[in-house]
C-alpha cells in the first residue's frame, strides 16, 4: 500500500519514542524539580528593554525591527468614560495618522512591508526579505487592541495596555513580542461589504493573567467589539478590538 508523508512520520515517531523506564525516571525528576521550585522564592522579572520580535507572513520570513519615536498616533484618553469604549475607538485623526505612517513606510520598504505595530512610543515593523506578495487591490486596515481593568469596588475602567496594528487586507500576520502584552498577535482581515470586515484574531495574553482571546467575526468599521471578559481576584478585565478601514494613499503627505 502506498504510504503518505504522515504515515512515514508516525512510524518514525514511534521508533524514536522513549521507553517506559525513561518516562518513569523523567517523571520522578519533574516531581522533584516541582517541589524544589515551590520552595524557592519567586524571581523578580526584569523589565525587558528591547523587543525581540519574529513573525512570518505567507511563506516568507519577516524580520521585525524596532524603532523608537515620539507619539504619533493619538493616544486614547488615560481616563476613559465608564464603559471604556472610548479607549478602544480609533478617532478620525488616528486613522489619518495611521494611513500616513503606513504610506511612508511602504515608500521606504516598497512591497516588502507586511505590518506596522505600535505600543506606546515604540513601533515595530514586519518587513519581508522577499519582495512581492501583495494582493492586487489590498487595502490598508488598522486594528486597535486594548485591555481595560476595573477593581470590583470601582466604577471607572482603566486602560491597561493598547496595541495598534496596521496591515493590508488578507495579510496573514503573526507578531510575537514576549515583553509586551499581548505577547503574540495573529490577525487576518478582509473587507467584505457595506463597511464590514471579516476578522480572525488570536491574542496570547500572559499578563496579568494567562489566556487566549480568539475570535472570528464580521465587524462594523470603527465599532469596538469585546473579545474577552473575565474577573480574577476582585478585578475585572476586558479586551476590546476595533477594526478601521483606511484609505490607500497615493501621496503620503
Amino acid at each position, binding site marked *: 500500500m502506498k504510504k503518505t508523508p504522515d504515515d512515514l*512520520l508516525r512510524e*518514525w515517531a514511534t521508533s524514536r519514542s522513549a521507553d517506559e523506564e525513561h518516562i518513569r525516571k523523567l517523571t520522578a525528576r519533574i516531581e522533584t524539580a516541582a517541589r524544589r521550585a515551590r520552595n524557592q522564592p519567586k524571581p523578580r522579572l526584569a523589565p525587558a528593554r528591547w523587543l525581540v520580535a519574529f513573525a*512570518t507572513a505567507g*511563506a516568507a520570513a519577516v524580520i521585525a525591527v524596532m524603532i523608537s519615536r515620539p507619539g504619533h498616533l493619538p493616544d486614547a484618553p488615560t481616563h476613559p468614560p465608564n464603559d471604556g469604549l472610548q479607549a478602544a475607538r480609533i478617532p478620525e485623526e488616528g486613522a489619518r495618522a495611521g494611513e500616513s505612517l503606513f504610506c511612508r513606510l511602504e515608500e521606504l520598504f516598497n512591497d516588502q512591508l507586511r505590518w506596522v505595530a505600535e505600543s506606546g512610543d515604540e513601533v515595530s515593523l514586519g518587513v519581508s526579505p522577499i519582495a512581492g506578495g501583495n494582493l492586487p487591490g489590498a487595502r490598508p486596515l488598522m486594528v486597535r487592541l486594548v485591555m481595560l481593568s476595573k477593581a470590583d469596588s470601582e466604577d471607572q475602567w482603566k486602560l491597561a495596555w493598547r496595541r495598534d496594528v496596521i496591515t493590508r487586507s488578507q495579510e*496573514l500576520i*503573526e507578531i510575537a513580542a514576549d515583553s509586551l502584552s499581548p505577547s503574540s498577535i495573529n490577525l487576518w482581515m478582509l473587507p467584505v461589504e457595506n463597511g464590514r470586515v471579516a476578522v*480572525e484574531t*488570536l491574542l*496570547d495574553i500572559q499578563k496579568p493573567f494567562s489566556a*487566549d482571546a480568539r475570535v472570528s467575526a464580521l465587524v462594523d468599521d470603527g465599532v469596538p467589539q469585546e473579545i474577552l471578559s473575565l474577573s480574577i481576584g476582585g478585578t475585572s478585565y476586558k479586551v476590546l478590538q476595533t477594526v478601521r478601514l483606511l484609505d490607500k494613499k497615493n501621496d503620503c503627505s
Partner: protein
Amino acid sequence: MIDLSDEQLAAVYVATGEMRFFDEIANRYTAQVRAMIYPVVLNHADTDDLTQETMLRVVRHLPSFRAKARLSTWIYRIAMNTTKDFMRKRKRNPVRSHSELSASDTVQEPITNPVAHDAAQLDRDIERALKKMSPALRVAMNLTAINGMDAGEAAKAAGCLRSSMYRRIHEAREFLRKELAEYLS
C-alpha cells in the same frame, strides 16, 4: 492513581496545594508532552529538559488555568511555547546532525540486515527532512500527523490561526513528498 478528571485534578491542586495532585498530572502527561517536543527539537537530552521545563511552567501557572478549557490543550500549548522559546534561542545554532548527536541521543542498534539498514536510512532521511523544515512547519506536522490532532486543536496548541495551520500542513506535506519521494512511490 487518583480517580479524577484532568480538570478536577487541576482544580483540587490549586485549592489544596497538595503536590500529590500535581504528581498525578505529571504521571498522565510527561510521556505525551515529551512525544510532542521531540519531533521539533530532534534531540533526546533537550527534549527531556524541555519536558521538565514545560511541567514546571504548568505547576507554576495552574492557578490561572480556566476550567472551561481542556487541561490537555492548555498543557500542549505551554509545551509548544516552551519549545518555541528554546528554538528561538537556538536559532543561531542549527540543529545538530544525526551523526553529531551524543551517544545518549542516538539509538545504538547494530545494522545487520538489509531491512534494518533500510529502516535506519529512512529514519535518518526523515530527520534530515525535518531539520530542513522551519520549526513552524515541524510543529504543524508534529501536532497533526504524529499526535493526531485536527487542524483546529493543533492551531490552539501552536498558538496560531486555523488558516495558518492549514497552510503549514499543506506546505510541510508538499516538502516531505519531495524530500522522501523514494519512500512514497
